[in-house]
Structures are given as structure tokens and as C-alpha cells.
């Protein structure tokens, strides 16, 4: 653990000292001994860098880049989930990826279990050893939410989502949600000034918008003040994308989401009529 922190501090110092980056966005201890995200601009300050707790920095990185000039180069000391979130943001053209240097570090087993993370490491870790991830569906906290017939599920999720106080915390914490304006603030989709909110539009529109971009960082449910297990909604769609199209958000920089591509693009072997469509016709080729 200490070794990991030292390694990140050292690498940050080298980057800043060599002038390869203009700043390092990281967790750091301030003069009141509080750990929080900070932008470190001088090499001698890198001693204060910390690696825990888990704190998603992707959106902060985006904001930093936008506020700084176009020539500002940023290093981000972050976890695997942040790396994937940054990659998704770069895929969505939110920043120029050449301006960012990643100092990724791996997560501990304990952290992975707490996050239910199946990939608790960045692709190329700057520090730490990759450990095997946790299968979230094997964990009772998730599997218990996904059992039961429609009636039980409806009752369960009505209860869970019914707690919502519509603080928009899930949306604000999400590293991927960057649209302005947001559909969740539009009366057309979600009636404003109604609390508790309408269940289907608010939660399901938010969840569906992330169906192919969610990197399962868990920031939404970390932010939720009433403890709604929002990640479970995403995990199912993520698993389905992986099974059906071999696609996982945040891994391949040059691959677009299969939900934006037609069958011919998704599979070079052409397509067959999927079993899920209601049709009496046989698959036909062109």
C-alpha cells in the first residue's frame, strides 16, 4: 500500500519536474490533513499525494482541462474506473486525449469487494499489481436484487426507487453525464418540482442513457443519500452488451458502442434475425 503511494508520488514528481505535464490531478492531503482532490502544479508538493479513499476524478479532470488553457497538459492519478471513464469521455470527444497522462494504480482486494468491481485495475497500471476482480453477480448484494418474478421485482424496485429525493446526486456524480441541458431537467421527460419523482422517467431514462457507456465505477450509488443500489441497474445491461456484442465500455478507444451500429457493422459475418424480435420471417441474407 505504502509502496503504491510512494510510487505514484515519485512518478508524479518526475512528470512535473521534467515538465512533461503542467499539473497532476490527484487525491492529496491538505494542510488540515484532509484528503480531497487537488491539482498539484509543483514537483515539491507531490509528497502530499494519497491514493485512498475511492474518489472519482474523471469529471474533475474534464473540468480542469476545460478551465485551463488549451496547451495545459494534465496527469491524473486515478483508479481503473477513472481510466475507463476518461476513455469513454474521450470517445465522446469531451477532451483531447493527448493532453492527459494517466497514472493509474490498482485497487486492493478490499476495495474491489466493496465496489463489486470486476476490473479493479487500470489497463496499464503505473503502480500496484493487478488483482482479479469480483464477479458482482455472485455477490448477494446484487444477486438479491435481481431475483424474483416480475411482481417481486416491481415491489422491490418501487420501494427502492421510491426513496428518491431527486437530489440529482447520481447524475452529478456520474463521470459520464456531461450534457447541458439534461433531459432529466426537462418537463417533457421528467416533471420538475415533483418530489418524489416519477419513477420510470427519472431513473430509467438516466440508467438507459448510460447503458452502453457506464463503466461501473459506482459513483452514482456512492453519491446517493438514500442508498439506492443504482449500480445494479447498469450491471445487467453491461453484462448483456458483453455477452451479445463482446463490448465493454471504457476498454477500446476505437470501438463505438454496438448500440450505435447496425448488425452489419457489429459482426463481419453478417446478421441473423435476432430471436427477440417478433417475426414470422426466416433470416435472409443480402
Amino acid at each position, binding site marked *: 500500500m505504502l509502496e503504491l503511494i510512494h510510487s505514484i508520488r515519485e512518478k508524479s514528481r518526475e512528470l512535473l519536474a521534467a515538465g512533461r505535464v503542467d499539473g497532476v490531478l490527484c487525491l492529496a492531503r491538505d494542510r488540515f490533513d484532509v484528503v480531497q482532490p487537488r491539482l498539484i502544479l509543483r514537483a515539491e508538493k507531490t509528497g502530499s499525494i494519497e491514493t485512498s479513499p475511492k474518489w472519482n476524478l474523471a469529471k474533475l479532470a474534464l473540468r480542469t482541462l476545460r478551465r485551463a488553457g488549451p496547451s495545459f497538459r494534465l496527469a491524473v492519478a486515478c483508479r481503473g474506473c477513472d481510466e475507463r471513464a476518461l476513455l469513454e469521455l474521450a470517445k465522446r*470527444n*469531451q477532451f483531447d486525449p493527448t493532453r492527459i497522462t494517466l497514472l493509474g494504480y490498482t485497487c486492493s482486494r478490499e476495495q474491489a469487494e466493496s465496489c463489486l468491481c470486476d476490473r479493479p485495475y487500470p489497463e496499464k497500471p503505473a503502480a500496484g499489481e493487478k488483482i482479479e476482480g469480483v464477479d458482482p453477480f455472485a455477490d448477494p448484494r446484487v444477486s438479491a436484487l435481481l431475483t424474483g418474478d416480475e411482481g417481486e421485482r416491481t415491489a422491490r424496485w418501487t420501494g427502492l426507487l421510491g426513496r428518491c429525493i431527486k437530489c440529482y446526486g447520481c447524475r452529478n456524480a456520474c463521470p459520464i453525464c456531461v*450534457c*447541458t441541458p439534461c433531459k432529466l431537467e426537462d418537463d*417533457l421527460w421528467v416533471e420538475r418540482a415533483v418530489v418524489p419523482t416519477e419513477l420510470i422517467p427519472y431513473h430509467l431514462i438516466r440508467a438507459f*442513457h448510460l447503458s452502453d457507456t457506464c463503466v461501473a465505477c459506482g459513483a452514482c450509488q456512492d453519491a446517493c443519500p438514500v442508498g439506492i443500489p443504482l449500480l445494479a441497474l447498469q450491471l445487467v445491461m453491461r453484462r448483456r452488451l458483453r455477452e451479445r456484442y463482446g463490448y465493454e465500455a471504457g476498454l477500446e478507444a476505437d470501438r463505438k458502442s454496438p448500440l*450505435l451500429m447496425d448488425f452489419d457493422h457489429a459482426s463481419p459475418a453478417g446478421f441473423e434475425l435476432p430471436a427477440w424480435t417478433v417475426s414470422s420471417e426466416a433470416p435472409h441474407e443480402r
Partner: protein
Amino acid sequence: MPGVMVFLCRCCGRIPPTVDLLALGEKIGREEGVAVVETRDTLCLPEDRAAMLRSFEESGASGILVAACSPYGKAGDVVTTLSAACDGDRSHVRLVDIREGCAWIHRGDPAGATAKAGDLIRMNLGFLRHGKRSADAVVAVRPECIVVGAGSAGMAAALSIARAGHRVHLVERGMGGGGMLKLLSHVYPTDAGAEEKLKPSLEAISAQPLIVFHAKTRVVAATGYAGDFKIRLASGTGETNLHVGAVILATGAGVWLPRGLYRYGELKEVLTLMELERRRREGRESPRRTVFIHCVGARCPERPYCATICCPSSIKNAAWIKRADPGAEVTILHRDIMMPGAILERYYRGALEAGVRFVRFAADAPPVVSGDGKVENVSVFDAINGVEREIAADQVILSTPLVANADNAKLADLFHIGIDRYGFFREDDPLHPLETRQAGVFICGSARWPVASGDAAAQGEGAAMKALAILGRERLSARSLSRLPEGKLGHARIEDGFCSGCGNCVAVCPYEACALQKVGGALVSRANKMRCRACGSCMSVCPNGTIQMPEHNARAVGAMIRRAFSPREAR
């Protein structure tokens, strides 16, 4: 008078027994934003239609809603009349189908049908409140055309366009025109010599001052849209920039070599059809015993398609050998004979009468060519008679399919059109076989699917007519680039300042109409009106609804969704 005029059609009493128009009219009259409700007998008849139009124009109402039959019935014409009165603007006119979509399918439930008709009208009233109209775009048409490929199809296309008085750039990667005809000796089904067939076209092209022939040239870059393409050509001597109004791709297809099949390449008497054509052109005689093998490398897992030209060409040559030397033994080993149409069927009968022998084999039991140092024998299991046959042979001709050119993919990328899984250019849909997904880019000949030279020329002329429909106009409006008489639905529109540049619309657009542009330091999407075909894919993937189809915008549809079901009584 503000508000919407609502016209209910009685359809000579074919709607009222089920839908209670009196109660419906009363209910709709109380709706917010409804100025007048009028019920008429037959809105499709000229008198009623004229009366409706007159009262609408006199009232100065903001919109008009017609509840009548389905848009595929007479009501479609009614709406067209009304839109014409609104200067073609359909955003003020809304048709509600209460006959086919309501009265006729809910005859057992009049109360339900009346309630449904009310809901449908309320939905469409909501739509009218938010319906908008896209601005049109108009471009000046460049009255020139480029034809890529100078084979049968390309030459026919270029000549047709030049005869209509437009300049044509005929681009050929080889030396001269002619394409695959230059490789052939004779063509089926007329058995005319390929050279005689080619000569008039070549002469016409060199005599035609409007045709600029670019030999040994390739297309290296292309931008633009229907009416206004900018194209860069490269040849050994340098680059040329063209500015044309339409593009015709006639790049033809390639010959597939059956390496390793039926001892091709090992025994020099095993030839492809193309090699036989060359020998025939050179006037060489055929040996006495010839065996043709069909479907070599076609209708197999790698190329499951039938290339359609191989059966006729091999039957053409078989009959030629037999007629030149009645003592010759000519056998065709086939899986199925594909000779569609009266002319080709007669051609096939002719070969049978000439004495060509046909033996059918099964795909899983292909013939075997044997011989030591030279072809001696072909053994095949006759699938019809169920006997093993040994056929003595001096030469074996392999009938292979045409395959797509390797640079089709590159050209498709340049012009933003599609290719199918075998690499041929893809037509837009079966009803528009010469058009591609990009307006103004047309395909013909074997580049889109293997065809004989005559068919290729016919397609070339067809593509030329399609191109002339653009070239013949001075100005081209984006709305007119539709196959619908009423024009295109509209064009995607991007709200300024709200686009986050995520690129979803760019990825999803089937016509590559959306593109990201740098505006004030940030990337935002821009939709090209000439390319947009108004499918609306973009609006369904835009995360915050920045891109909209004004004629079908989310607010209008949202209003419909919210009004679709009147509140249910407590249950």
C-alpha cells in the same frame, strides 16, 4: 381566429355507426385550442374539400386537423390539398385516421372506439401545437458528371449523359475503354464478336467532344453532396480536381482464379473460362474432348452467391466448340443450370440440340480431374442417374464467378456508400436498384452485381437517366431529394449551443449526414441537409435531445404520448 379547426368526416355513414361523431364533436369542441369543429359527409369529394379549404382560409385558423380515413386512402390527397394551401407546410395540417384505424376495427366496441377517436384527436392537437417545419437548403447544380470505370456500363452511361448535353469525365484505371469486353471473344446470347460490339462505343466516345477521357487515372478524394461533388483524380502525370453534380460508379468486377481447385495451375490443360475466351479470340482451335465444370468457387461457403454470368458464358463456349467440330465431345458438369428468361432458355436448348452433354453432380461430390502430366480423365458421380461416370478429356474448363474489385471498399468509403458482404456496391433498396444511400451517387454494371455486358450497358443508361434528373436542374433543393411525391419529411436540426459533441449522431447516421465540426473551440455536430434523409436515428440517440427532426420533434411526440390515454377511472 386563433386555434385549430377540426373537421370530422362522416364518410357517408361508414364511421358514425361505431364512432359517435356527435358526442365526439362536442368533446373535442371543449378541448383547449380548438376553434371550430365541423362535421362533413365526404371530405374527399371536391365540393366538401373546396368548402373545407374555403372555411379554413377564411377563418385564418392556426392549424387544421382532419379526422377521416387513413393516409393511404383518400385522406392522403385531402392533406396534400391542405398542405398546398399552407404553402407546402405540413406542420399546420394533421390527419387523424378514425376510419381504418378506429371505426372499422372496433365495431364491437362503439364506446371504446369513440373514446379512442377522441384520444387520437387530442394527441394530434397536441402535436399541432409543437409541430415545426425544417428550413430547406438549395444548392446550385454543377452540370457535369463523373463516370468511374469505362467498361460496358460506364461507356453507356457516359454516352447517354454526353448526348443529353452535359460534360462527362470518364475515368478509367487502365489504358482505354472496354472493360471486361476486351477480354472476351464473343458475347452471349447473340454470339456477336466482342470487338465488333465494342467498336461503335469506343468510336462514339472518342468522337464525342463532351466526354473527357481520363486514362490510367484513379479517384483519390471526394467530398460534397448531390449537385455539388468535389473530386480529386490522380494519374501518373499529376492530380486533377473536378467539380461535378453527380457520380456514377461503374467499376466492374474481377475474375476469380481457382488456384488449387481441380488441379488448376498444375495441369496446363485445366483452364478458366477467361483463358478459353482468350484462346478463342486468338483463333486457336479446341482439342476434341472438353469437360466444363460449373460453380467452381461459387455457391460455396466463402462465396455463397450465384454469379449469374458463368452458366451462360460456359454454355456459349461449349456450343461453339461443338458447332465448330461436330465430332467433338463436350460435356458440362453442373450443379444447377441457371439460364433465366426466354432468351437464355432458348440459348440453353440450342446447346443441347448441338449435342453438348450435361451431367449433374452434387455439391458434396465434386468431380475429380485425373491425369499424369496432362489431363486424361474426369470422374464424376452423376447425381441424376446415380452412376459413376468416367469422362475422357483433353482439356477441362473451370467456370468461375466474378468477384468484387478490391478497391470497392475504398471507393465506398470515399463516396459514403455501402458495400455488401461480398464487396459489391450496395443498392439503396430493391426498388431503387441504381441508387445508393448517398443521393447523387449511382451504381451500375458488375460493380453492383455480376451482369452480362448487355445488362451492364442497360444499367449504365439507367444510371445516366438518374444522374440527368439531377444534372438537368439548375438548382437542387434538399427537400426534393426524396422519392416521395410530397418531398422529404424534413432535415435533422441541431440546436445551437446545446450539443456536447458526443458523436452519437455521427456514429448512428446511416447516410453520414452528421459530422463534427469545431465551433469556438468545442466540437459540435452539424447535419448536412443534402445528405439527411430524415430517418430520425440521430434524434433517438442524442442524449439530451439537441438534434431534432422539426417535423417530428420530441415535444410534439411527447405531447402525443402524454395525451394517448385519457386518465383511467380508479380501478
